C-alpha cells in the first residue's frame, strides 16, 4: 500500500524539479514547460494520496485534478500566445530585465 507514498514523493520531486527549472532557465518556452511539470507533480500528490482508502480511491481529488488539468491547459495556451506576441514586439523569448531599482 505504501507505493501510494512513493508516488506522492515522486510528485514532490516533480514539483521541486519544475520549480528549479522555472527559476534557472530563461527561455520562456522552458519556463512554460516547467510550470506544467510542477502542476503534474501536484496532481500526482493529490491523486496518489487519495488511494489511502480500503476500497476504491477517494474521487474528490480526482475531480480536482481534472479541473486542474483544464486550468493548466488554459494557462499554457495563454502563456504560449503571450510568448509569441512578446517575441514579435521585442525580438526576445526571455523576460525583460528586472526593472531598475
Amino acid at each position, binding site marked *: 500500500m505504501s507505493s501510494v507514498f512513493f508516488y506522492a514523493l515522486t510528485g514532490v520531486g516533480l514539483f521541486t524539479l519544475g520549480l528549479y527549472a522555472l527559476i534557472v532557465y530563461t527561455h520562456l518556452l522552458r519556463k512554460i514547460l516547467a510550470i506544467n511539470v510542477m502542476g503534474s507533480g501536484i496532481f500526482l500528490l493529490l491523486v496518489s494520496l487519495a488511494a489511502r482508502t*480500503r476500497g476504491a480511491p477517494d474521487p474528490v*481529488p480526482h475531480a480536482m485534478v481534472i479541473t486542474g488539468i483544464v486550468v493548466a491547459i488554459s494557462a499554457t495556451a495563454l502563456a504560449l500566445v503571450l510568448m509569441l506576441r512578446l517575441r514579435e514586439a521585442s525580438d526576445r523569448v526571455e523576460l525583460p530585465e528586472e526593472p531598475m531599482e
Partner: protein
Amino acid sequence: MTKLNNKQRLFRLLLLVLLSVLAAGLGYAVLKLPLQAPGLSTRVTENLVVSGVSNPVTAVLLNFRGYDTLLEMAVLLLALLAVWSLGSQSERRESAPGAVLDMLSRLLIPLFIMVSGYLLWVGAHAPGGAFQAGSVLAAAGVLLLLAGWRPGVWFVGLPLRITLVLGLAMFVAVAVAVQLAGWRLLEFPLPVAGTLILLIEAAATLSIGITLAALFFGHRPQTGQDSGSQTEQGEK
C-alpha cells in the same frame, strides 16, 4: 544554453541546496500523513445514488462540486478571450497538408467524433465525461485545422461565439432555472438530475472541444468586416 560564469554557478548551487531542503521538508510532511484515510470517499458513495450519475468522479465534478466546474468553464472561456485579445499573428505560412495527413484525418476525424460522443454518454456510469469527450472532440478539430480546413465565413461570427459560450451558458441557465423552480443553486432534484447533468455535459463537451481547437488555432478567425491586426505600440 550558454556557459555559466562562477556567479551563476554559485547561484544554482545555492538554489539546489535550498530546493533540496524544501523537497525534504515536503517529503517529511507527506510521509507523516496517516497511512489510511478514507477522505470523502464514504460520503461520496453514500450520496452517489441521489446524484443522478453512478460514476463518482462525474458526480463530484458535475453535482457535488458543480460550482467549481461552472467557474472552470469560465476559465476556459477566459483563456480563449485572452488569446483573441492578443491580436493576430502577423502572418502564418499555410503549408499544404501531406497526403498522409489528409488521409489520416479523413479516417480519424469521424472516429474521434464518435469516441467523443461515446465518452460523453458513458461518463455517467464509467470513466469519461465532458472534459474527456470535449478534448477528444478538440483533437478532431486540431486534425481538421492541420489538414488545412478553415471554418466557413458564416460560422466564424456569432455562431462560433455561441458555440464557445454554450457550455458556461447552459451551466448558468440550469443553475438559475433550478433556483426559480424552488431548489437551491445548482441543486439537481433526483428525477431529473441525470438529464440535467447530461444536458450540461453535452453543451460543455461542445464548448470545450471548440474552445480547445480555437486555442490551438491561436487567434481569432477573421470575419468579413474585421479591421486587420491591432498590435499597437504602447506609449513610451
